């Protein structure tokens, strides 16, 4: 899957929880750059990491990630 196909609302959800990229990264157990590249649609996370991010933001995976419509 190309990173361009996977849209996300990470930035919006982070803002809702008043979390910086570094804070979310610490909660999930990855580096800040990993969160940054996911947020900017450069890197596609694994299902496990997507689930961890969703859990950290207290939402479902579908709330965070969606497939880009053609």
């Amino acid at each position, binding site marked *: 899957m190309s990173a361009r196909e996977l849209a996300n609302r990470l930035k919006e959800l982070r803002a809702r929880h008043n979390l910086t990229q570094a804070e979310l*990264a610490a909660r999930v157990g*990855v*580096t800040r750059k990993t969160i940054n590249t996911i947020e900017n649609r450069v890197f596609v996370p694994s299902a496990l990491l997507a689930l961890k991010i969703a859990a950290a933001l207290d939402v479902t995976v579908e709330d965070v990630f969606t497939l880009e419509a053609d």
Partner: protein
Amino acid sequence: MDDISKLVRDQNRVMTAMGLIFAIWQGSTLAREITLSAAPEFGDTAILYADRVEAVGAVLWVLATIALLLVMRRVKRARAQDVMRDELFRHNQSLAMKVGFKAMIALIVVLVGFEAFFELTSGIAIRAMMLVAVLAPLTTFVILSRDDSAVEA
């Protein structure tokens, strides 16, 4: 900048330095091999300069290795190994290895083509392969791991 990002940045700086030192160190040896093969009349000068650069390169390499070990110790103390070797790290590592493999194949094609027209010693081929095998994946990994993204709130 958070502590993990600082550790990643320091690790990348040390790796960049190691790459540069390796290029100078082994590059001088390659230059000597090429000079000896292509222009033997400059052999003495080439050996003199290459020996000096090699000696300095070897000392710098040892210092860079010590610096890397110190960064690794900081990573261990911060218990940051798992975080630093996360998904993106493994993804970048895998991409760097692929680039290294392709660069090696490209180099072999170039060397085979080169051999048809010039005399190619095993020393030149080995040094060139050593340089590409180390520098292509290392450079790719450092570029991919560079954290130049703005810190977003």
